[in-house]
């Protein structure tokens, strides 16, 4: 029995087809889905695609940024106005993977994958979803928390406010260079008000089943300066809220041990 491939011009039609069938899976870039298909995964009976140009849209302004879920890592790397996201996109697989891998797919990638989703979490992104009941929006934190419970929802895009210049930082720690799966990744948005942090957003990848916020560290940074003394309290509580697991890449113990080190290096600018 082969897989049925259904291609739709409109996102809405694709979303309807997706929710209509249990064995239906949406085709983003194929980096996750095609492996399942190659392995004859019984959970995949139908591949739903959409050729809707809106999916690949990159709407970049000085204020809000809207990225279609179908935009690839390569497309982001080609967009000069998204330079602050290039260090993130460049860590996703090798060049060939980046030509295929999409933002939408990364939102569904399981730990230790999903580094771009980690960045989006630190950017307080809003996820646009087309379900059986039409369009809706959801804060990314909520989306990631409910991701594995949620039904077959179709993410159409993400949007977020452009971070202040030089306020966004990202580091991915991997064993293998240049292409390595994350031991952990840290994304941080560090807005400065007269030299002091206000409203920091810090997200961890590979520190739980999905990317998680480092709220304790965020609180500890509030009103602090980015120097050794200023970041110390945040580093001290770095691991709060993190629940890493043992996998083939690294043990939970090691991930937990080096998380504060890499957070400190990132905050002090010694990272990446």
């Amino acid at each position, binding site marked *: *029995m*082969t897989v049925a491939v259904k291609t739709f011009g409109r996102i809405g039609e694709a979303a309807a087809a997706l929710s209509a069938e249990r064995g239906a899976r949406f085709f983003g870039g194929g980096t996750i889905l095609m492996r399942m298909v190659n*392995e*004859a995964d*019984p959970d995949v009976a139908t591949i739903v695609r959409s050729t809707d140009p809106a999916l690949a849209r990159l709407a970049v302004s000085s204020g809000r940024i809207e990225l279609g879920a179908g935009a690839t890592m390569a497309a982001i790397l080609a967009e000069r106005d998204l330079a602050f996201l290039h260090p993130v996109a460049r860590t996703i697989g090798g060049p060939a993977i980046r030509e295929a891998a999409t933002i939408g797919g990364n939102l569904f990638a399981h730990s230790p994958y999903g580094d771009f989703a980690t960045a989006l979490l630190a950017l307080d992104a809003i996820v646009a979803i087309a379900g059986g009941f039409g369009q809706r929006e959801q804060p990314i934190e909520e989306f990631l928390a409910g991701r594995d419970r949620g039904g077959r929802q179709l993410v159409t895009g993400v949007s977020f406010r452009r971070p202040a210049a030089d306020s966004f930082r990202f580091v991915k720690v991997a064993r293998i260079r240049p292409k390595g799966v994350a031991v952990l990744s840290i994304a941080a948005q560090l807005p400065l008000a007269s030299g002091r942090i206000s409203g920091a957003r810090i997200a961890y990848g590979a520190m739980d089943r999905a990317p998680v916020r480092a709220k304790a560290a965020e609180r500890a940074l509030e009103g602090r300066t980015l120097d050794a003394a200023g970041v110390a309290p945040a580093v001290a509580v770095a691991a709060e809220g993190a629940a890493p697991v043992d996998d083939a890449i690294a043990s939970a113990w090691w991930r937990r041990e080096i998380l504060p080190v890499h957070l400190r290096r990132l905050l002090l600018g010694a990272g990446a």
Partner: protein
Amino acid sequence: MLEFRKDIFADERDDNLKEVGRPTQRQDILGHVTGASAFYDDHRFAGLLHLKILRSPHAHARIRSIDDAAAQRAPGVKRIIRAADVPVNLNTLLSLIQFGKDDEPSLASDVVRYKGEPILGIVATSERSAREALALVRVSYDPLPAVFDVEEALKPGAVSVNATYPKNTFEYYGKYDHQKLRYGDVDSAFGQCDVIVEDRYQMSPIEHAPTETNGSIAVPDTNGRFVVYTSTQALFFSLDTAAKINAMPSNQLHFIGGTVGGGFGGKVDTLTEPLAILAARLTGAPVRYRLSRHEEMQFGSPRGAERIYVKDGAMRDGRIVARKVTAYFDSGAYTRLSSYAAVKCAAHIPGPYTIPNVYGDVYCVFTNRTPATAMRGFGVTALDFALECQMDKLATAIGMDPIEFRILNAYRDGDMKAHRREAKNCALIECCQVAAEKANWPIREEYRRMSSRRGAASAPHASARPEAPRRQPAPAPVQQRIPYDRAGEPPAPDAPPPRPPAPPPAGSSHGATRFSSVFGTRRR
């Protein structure tokens, strides 16, 4: 960057050659860069069928029942291959050289002994159909306790893994559960040496990870023969193994290979050919059996893990006088080639050094994991890791430069090795000297002058022997038991100087030399 030192050993070589020694281009390179090189899977046949294998999810279990009725009715399925279909369903690879007993089935019938052990095969019109049909097979198991640690497996009352070797050890010479090496008298040497360093080393299993996975295509040929395109590293080894398992005369098999996408030892086990041939016989069609990457990673036989204990005794002047090694090879559930590696390991003790008292016990142990097999450096890589870490710890303990320490103890032409053969054609000292020079690692003049060759100013126990090293920290006191990496405090300099070596007695049979003294003898 690669450089030659033609000046060294120049007098032993005739460099007046025309083709040998030239950087001639590879004969196969044009095919490689154009993609034209034909690997086993680059041959196409009309009506090719695909074989996929149902594997055990348990490390150790009794198979209660197998229900493949639904799979048989699944679309595309041409044939199901069960244990009963395998003509000779028990084999061991080295039976080809009369070493060891048949202990491994091609398809498990009653008991599975490792996670991933083949149970049943499905031949279908596409790999996908075969995979889908596999999902329909229902096997009920009674899980059994499993053992995963080599030393646990040797304890009394441990779970018995392999019915052929119920004590979980390979049987050597019909009477021993391990391979022995006995030379000199380590115990009295340990009693008289200045420094003892002991440690435990654990190797990891390692996957060969060739970019081309194991596989083969068996094609029915004219006159009842079968042409087999294969990724094997050993053509006749695989041919004879396949012939035995299929109870076929070997001349009914025509194996074609020779262009292989990496092996490193992982393509000796003949994992796919016997069942591909059986499937082709049972269906009359060409059949491909190709391991998936996941199968290759987890079930395609890794380099086995070894656990090695080493105890070394040395004198303050740097001479190692005793080395005792106990090694356990984790063979997994079946023998494959580990029994051979254990003997090779015993032969390698004590490494490239002349040590008058050597003791070795090497065990080939069965556990409930993927059967191990050969890999680059088989039987030696792990021992070298253990011994060369020991050498570093000994040098630290004695307070000697690690390269000078190796040169001092390195075997020289004419020395007697622990397996009682004379060392010849040695070159360890010269390698150490050149590496030190290239790395700007300072070693003293007398060590730069030493040589592997007979007669040269070489033997540390001879008059040319350097005086005890001056390097910090100072030598360890007599009989100090040293936890490896902490050097001893300044010594109590009251240790009697070691006795001069006894003169070499006449070589006994096999040129063996009797060792009358702890310090042994060195031929000159």
